[in-house]
Structures are given as structure tokens and as C-alpha cells.
């Protein structure tokens, strides 16, 4: 079946702009995670959804970052007033439920100029 997909694959934006990153999880997976990965580092946890609700958003770095999953499937990560330090690969993963293996998407490479 289809895996996790993320769009766009690449996004270049100017400092101060607003961006939205989309994640389509595997059908039937109730758990969805967002991570951020910088070069040479492991993924950094941002937020975890169980169904429609954000069960843990403790990894969001500040209030410029927000994520939604209104129908318990597709999720959107939203970044306001982007900064150059937001440049990274944003990874999405889904799993059948929490504590199970995660299936990762290919990521969105965000570059803030």
C-alpha cells in the first residue's frame, strides 16, 4: 500500500513568510508525529497526534509553530514568521498507534533565505 507522503518535497521561502507543510499518513494509522532534522543530527520531536488531538506538543520550539490534524488523517505543520534557523528537513511519521514502529515520509526540506 501507499506509504507516508509529504508535500512539498522542497520549500524555499523568505524570512518572515508563512509556510505550511503537509503530511499524508498511512491509512488507518491513528498516531502521527512531526520531527525536525538538521544535518548530521537525529530527528528532533516536535508534536504527536493520537487521532485528531495533539497528545504531546512539547517539542514545538515556540508559538510560531502550530500543527493540526482536523479529521484524524492528513496533518499540516504551520510555521509563521519564518526565521533562518527554521531551515531543516521536516519529517512526518505515522504508526498504527503509539509505541509501535513508525513509518516515515521522505521529508520536506525547508530553506529560509
Amino acid at each position: 500500500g501507499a506509504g507516508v507522503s509529504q508535500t512539498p518535497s522542497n520549500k524555499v521561502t523568505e524570512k518572515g513568510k508563512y509556510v505550511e507543510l503537509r503530511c499524508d499518513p498511512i491509512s488507518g494509522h491513528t498516531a502521527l508525529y512531526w520531527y525536525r532534522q538538521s544535518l548530521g543530527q537525529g530527528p528532533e520531536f516536535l508534536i504527536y497526534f493520537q487521532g485528531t488531538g495533539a497528545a504531546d506538543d512539547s517539542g514545538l520550539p515556540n508559538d510560531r509553530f502550530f500543527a493540526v490534524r482536523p479529521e484524524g488523517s492528513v496533518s499540516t505543520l504551520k510555521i509563521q514568521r519564518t526565521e533562518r534557523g527554521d531551515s531543516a528537513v521536516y519529517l512526518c511519521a505515522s504508526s498504527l498507534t503509539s509505541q509501535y514502529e513508525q513509518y516515515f515520509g521522505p521529508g520536506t526540506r525547508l530553506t529560509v533565505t
Partner: protein
Amino acid sequence: SQQGEEDPQALSIQEGENATMNCSYKTSINNLQWYRQNSGRGLVHLILIRSNEREKHSGRLRVTLDTSKKSSSLLITASRAADTASYFCALYSSASKIIFGSGTRLSIRP
């Protein structure tokens, strides 16, 4: 912090040799998972070991977990060129937050 610390940071071995990577952590976990990431691609799940398990095997992979020492190791036997990648441990605690280690970059020399 319950961050996973992996060592070595980088490992280069000859094809056919075994590769061992270690992950240490600081707090209680429910399970620990290992993932592989090829350059420029997403992560792929390799193996999951629960806190009440000590060892698991999957093909050429062997994972051990010592909860008393708060450490895990990943052994890849008879390495191949295709094993060249970064390997990460991921800590799953009772909280929903998942913490990844900083990774080991494995290079297999032909």
C-alpha cells in the same frame, strides 16, 4: 534528559566484518527501536525491543537491551555495501514523546 547517546559517532569497516553500535539513555523506557537512514532519505524501522526483553534478532541484525545499564547495542553481521547509512536509536517512554539519538554513521568499505 532522556536523550539517547550513540557511539561511535562514525564507524568505517571492511565489507564482511561485523558492525556494533551502542545507545545509552538516562530514564525509563517502554521500548527501544532502531532505525536506519540512507543519505537524503526518510528513516526505516529496523527492530523494536521491549523493556522486558534482553535480545532480539532479525536477519543479520541483533539487538540487545540492558535496562540496568540503560544501554542497547545493534550488531550487524557480515556487513554489505548496502548497509552504509546512519543508524539511530529511538527511546519510547511512558510519555508519548519519542527521543532519537544523534546517530552512528556507518561506512562499509568494499
